[in-house]
C-alpha cells in the first residue's frame, strides 16, 4: 500500500509588493484588536508574519528581563509590545516584537495611538529574527529615529545604537545602562534550556548580578 503525504506548506510569513498605503491602513483596521499577526510596511512592500511559539517565548523573556532591570535601576518604563508605529509621510510602518519608552516616557504618557508624525519614536525596539525578513528593518527603524534596537537571531542578541550614519553595534545598552549583549544572550540561552519557564525571582537575581558587575 502506498500513502501519499503531501507536504503542507502553511507559511508563517507572507511578502507582498505593490501594496498601497490605503490597503495597509485597511488591513491594520481589520487587525486592530488582534495581536496575532505583525505587519511591516515599507513603501509598497508589506510583510505579514505570524510568530511561532518559540518566537513569543524569547519576546516574553526579554520583556521580563527589561522589567526586572528597570526595577533595579528604579527607572520607569513603558512597554508597548507590538503596538503599530506608522508614519504616512514616510509611507512606512512597523509592529516590533516589543517596544519601550524609557527616556521619552513622559512625552508619550497617556497616548493611545502612535502615528508618529508628532511625538518621539520608541526608545528601544526589540526584534526576534529567527528567519530573516526581506525588508531591511534597521533602515526602517532608522527612518523613525528609534535610538536603540535589540536583535535576537536565536543564538545571539545584538545591541545596536543609532548614530549619524546608521546603527552601530554596541556592547552595552544606552537605554538601560548595565544591560549588555553578552548577559542578555546568556539569559536567553538559559530561558531556552528551561523551555521558557524562568521564575521572576531568577530574573531579579540576574538583574542584580548585572548591576553589581557594573558597580565593580
Amino acid at each position, binding site marked *: *500500500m*502506498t*500513502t*501519499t*503525504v*503531501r*507536504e*503542507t*506548506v*502553511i*507559511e508563517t*510569513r*507572507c511578502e*507582498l509588493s*505593490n*501594496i*498601497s498605503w*490605503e*490597503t495597509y491602513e*485597511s*488591513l491594520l*483596521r*481589520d*487587525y486592530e484588536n*488582534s495581536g496575532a*499577526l505583525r505587519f511591516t510596511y515599507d513603501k509598497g512592500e508589506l510583510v*505579514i508574519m505570524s510568530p511561532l511559539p518559540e518566537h513569543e517565548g524569547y519576546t516574553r523573556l526579554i520583556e521580563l528581563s527589561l522589567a526586572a532591570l528597570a526595577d533595579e535601576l528604579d527607572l520607569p518604563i513603558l512597554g508597548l509590545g507590538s503596538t503599530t508605529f506608522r508614519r504616512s509621510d514616510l509611507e512606512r510602518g512597523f509592529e516590533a516584537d516589543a517596544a519601550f519608552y524609557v527616556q521619552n516616557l513622559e512625552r508619550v504618557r497617556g497616548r493611545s495611538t502612535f502615528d508618529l508624525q508628532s511625538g518621539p519614536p520608541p526608545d528601544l525596539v526589540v526584534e526576534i529574527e529567527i528567519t530573516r525578513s526581506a525588508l531591511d528593518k534597521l533602515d526602517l527603524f532608522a527612518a523613525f529615529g528609534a535610538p536603540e534596537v535589540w536583535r535576537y537571531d536565536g543564538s545571539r542578541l545584538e545591541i545596536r545604537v543609532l548614530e549619524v550614519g546608521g546603527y552601530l553595534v554596541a556592547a552595552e545598552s544606552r537605554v538601560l545602562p548595565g544591560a549588555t549583549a553578552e548577559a542578555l544572550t546568556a539569559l536567553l540561552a538559559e530561558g531556552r534550556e528551561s523551555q521558557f519557564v524562568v521564575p521572576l525571582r531568577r530574573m531579579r537575581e540576574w538583574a542584580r548580578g548585572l548591576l553589581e558587575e557594573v558597580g565593580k
Partner: protein
Amino acid sequence: MTTTVLETAMETRFVLSNVSWETYECLMQDYENSSAPRFTYDKGRLEIMSPLPDHERYKRSLEAAITIICLETGAHAEALGSTTYRREDLEQGFEPDSCYYFANENRVAHKATLDLCGDPPPDLVVEVDNTRSSIDKLALFAAFGVPEVWRYDGERLEMRTLESGRYTEIAESRALPGVTAEALTRLLGERGDARLTDWLRAVREWALTLAEPELEP
C-alpha cells in the same frame, strides 16, 4: 507494508482570517494587473496562494490542451485566465487558475470588465493544486454558479458538474463533450517526462480522434 511518498507542494498558501471586504477590494486594486499571487476571499477569510513552477507547468499544459481541443473540435471558447470574480453581496471572490466560456462565449466576448450581476460565471473553471486550501473552493464556485470544475492534483484530473447546488463527479465533460477525465489524467501524466512540443503533438493526435465522426457499423 506502507510506503510513504512525500510529494513536493505545487504552491504555498498564507491565510488571513479577519479581512474586511474593503481591504479585499483595496488589495484587488493594488494587484489589478498581476496574476500572482492569487487571492481567494470567503466572508472575511483571505487566502494568498503563490504558485510554484509545477503549478504553472500543469496549468499552462492544461490550457494548451484545452486550446487544442477547441481547435480540433471546432468548439467556440473565450479564455479569461485568472480574471477576478467577486461579489460583494456574497462577500466572496476568487481568481481561478484558468477559466473558460463555451455556451456563454458570445455573452462575454470582447468585454473589458465583467459585472457578475448581469454577466454569467465561467462555464468551466480549471484548478491546479496539490495542497489543501483553507477555503472550501467548491462551495465558493457553487455560490457563483460555475457549471463545471476541473481539478488536477498532479496525479489525477477530476471533473465535477453542478447539480442542484452541489458538485458531483463526472467521467466526461459536459462543457467539452467527448473529453474524459481519464484521457486528460493520462495525457497530463505523460507531461512530466516529455518535451512541451512533443507533448502538444501527442495531445493534438488525441484531440483529432474527438473530432472524427463516429463510424457507422
